């Protein structure tokens, strides 16, 4: 039961927030002007807040149900986790701040932060996953880390094809070509799920003692949490037709 809860939120994060990371990585490729970049960002704008919070839920589930693993995993990968957090904050600051002041330089700077933060997130995830999955650390870990980052980027592009229109959609379809957009998205999602599941199998998933009390509460909450998110997905189900608040 505890493992299901952890897997649910961790895999949900990889698929949902993985797309936001990928779109951020591909931002300079997808959006060639400030206005185009703003429209590309509108593709993830209503979702990324609700997507990244799946990782916050993972942190909470680790703290409540796997406290020993939480300490080992986070303090044992101290440098990577710090880099991941800094990249995450940088990416979010870029998204939140770009539209708050008019001016090309301000927006270019924060778009740069979004791109750098997204790459940083993807690479530190790559580093973490390859450490957990393959036990590789050091310079050699760059190879699997890059592979994972490329997977995030591909996933972001397939998500962008589902959200954007016109020339932006065509650019996003560079990998999928004429294949079905939804099917390509399903494929990159499945690949991320596979990486997540394999990494999870390598972890010492020894639950703490709060499970019998806490896990039923969490299981009861999950349908409500999913319903809240489904409301967001339903509200913003249409393709992007213009810039958003960001």
């Amino acid at each position, binding site marked *: 039961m505890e493992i299901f809860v952890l897997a649910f939120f961790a895999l949900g994060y990889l698929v949902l927030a993985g797309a936001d990371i990928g779109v951020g990585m591909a931002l300079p490729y997808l959006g060639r002007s400030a206005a185009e970049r703003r429209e590309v960002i509108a593709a993830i*704008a209503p979702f990324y807040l609700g997507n990244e919070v799946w990782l916050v839920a993972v942190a909470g589930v680790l*703290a409540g149900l796997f406290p*020993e693993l939480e300490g080992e995993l986070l303090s044992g990968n101290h440098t990577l986790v710090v880099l991941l957090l800094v990249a995450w904050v940088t990416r979010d600051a870029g998204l939140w701040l770009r539209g708050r002041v008019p001016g090309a330089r301000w927006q270019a700077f924060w778009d740069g932060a979004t791109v750098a933060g997204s790459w940083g997130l993807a690479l530190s995830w790559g580093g973490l996953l390859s450490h957990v999955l393959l036990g590789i650390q050091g310079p050699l870990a760059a190879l699997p880390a890059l592979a994972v980052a490329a997977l995030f980027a591909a996933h972001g592009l397939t998500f962008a094809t589902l959200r954007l229109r016109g020339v932006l959609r065509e650019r996003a379809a560079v990998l999928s070509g004429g294949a079905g957009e939804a099917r390509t998205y399903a494929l990159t999602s499945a690949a991320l799920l596979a990486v997540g599941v394999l990494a999870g199998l390598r972890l010492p998933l020894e639950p703490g003692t709060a499970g019998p009390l806490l896990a039923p509460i969490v299981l009861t909450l999950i349908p409500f949490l999913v319903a809240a998110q489904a409301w967001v997905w339903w509200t913003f189900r249409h393709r992007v037709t213009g810039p958003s608040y960001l």
Partner: protein
Amino acid sequence: MDTVELARLQFALTAGAHFLFVALTLGLATLVAVVQTRATFSGDPVHLRMTRFWGQLYVINYAMGIVTGLVMEFQLGLAWSGLTEYAGDVFGAALAMETLVAFFVESTFLGLWIFGWNKLNRWAHLAVIWVVTLTAYASAFWIMVANGFLQNPLGHVLENGRLRLVDFGAMVANPAAQVAFGHVLAAAMVTGGFFVAGVSAYHLRRRTAERDVFRKSLRIGLGVALPGLFVTATFGGLGFETMQPGKIAAWSGSAERLAAVQAEMTALHGPGDHLPPVEVVQTAGITMLVLFAVMLFLGGPSFLLMLVRPVVHGFRLWHGLLTLMIPLPFAAMLAGWVFREVGRQPWAVDGLLTTAEAMSPLSHGQVVFSLTAFSAVFGALIVINVWLLGRHARRGPGAVALGDRPIEAPVPVPSF
């Protein structure tokens, strides 16, 4: 500094920075929800402008609160794995509840509120801001439950060198948590109230165009801040009942009491320094109380002055004072937090686990690295937040992007 001191500094700086954003968020969320409720019921354009103006400031600040909050969720596992291993099975449950019933729902609905403006039905949109506000309270509640456990452990047993949760209700009902939650929530209302009053006073002083918006806002701000001060003080007073003996002794400064606590703790835990740093505890406590007194002396008469319309429009010296007061609640909250947290030293979990034992097995270099990285990022975010809040506050309701239909249409660029 040794490694533990550095790790403590890191936690203090990041938690303190996060706390500044949260204090304003909690208060401002409430005020935005109240104003939006009035706007939705009345349909009055003034109320709508108020909602969008304060909502914009709220979102700017909230965004920074969220990104610093993301880091906070990982801090314990990162630098204090001794604490999570020893006590995570107990207070980790409160942290899990915080992420799931509070942070998760709050973020989901905040996205819906920001991007669903002019898209959702207006009643649904109103419901969404109330969910965001209530889950913000829930977040503070569960964090205070976790913190209350560290201050005054309840609901656990010790088994095989680790704590196990046996009474969830006792942990939640912990007076050290409940009283602190009331104290912090009311103090956040004071923070939000004085912020709204101070920004409104700035515009009234400058005689900007939006007199109705800022007269009403100033009244709402002071109308929340003054009762908030009384509630804060009431819970603060109750808080003294729930304090550890070491904190009380340090606060009293009495050598006899300090010696008694030291002797009692030595008997229980063996030789060592079992007292918190007396000067820090006293300075923080006095700072909090002095700031409270200043706020009360200015807030009381202000509450009466605001009832007289010509005064609200024309008393410029008072306007200036109100604007200058904006930082006071923030400083008071930080001081109160230092008082509470430094006062429980040397314990991470009172009487059970020391701060030194709680630390992760990290090297000096690792802590220097994370301390530098987080301080740089958080410092930059604070500066940007203050600057952006000031900029948007000065510009007034005319320049608000939130809830506006996007103006710039994208220009298609030919691909050749």
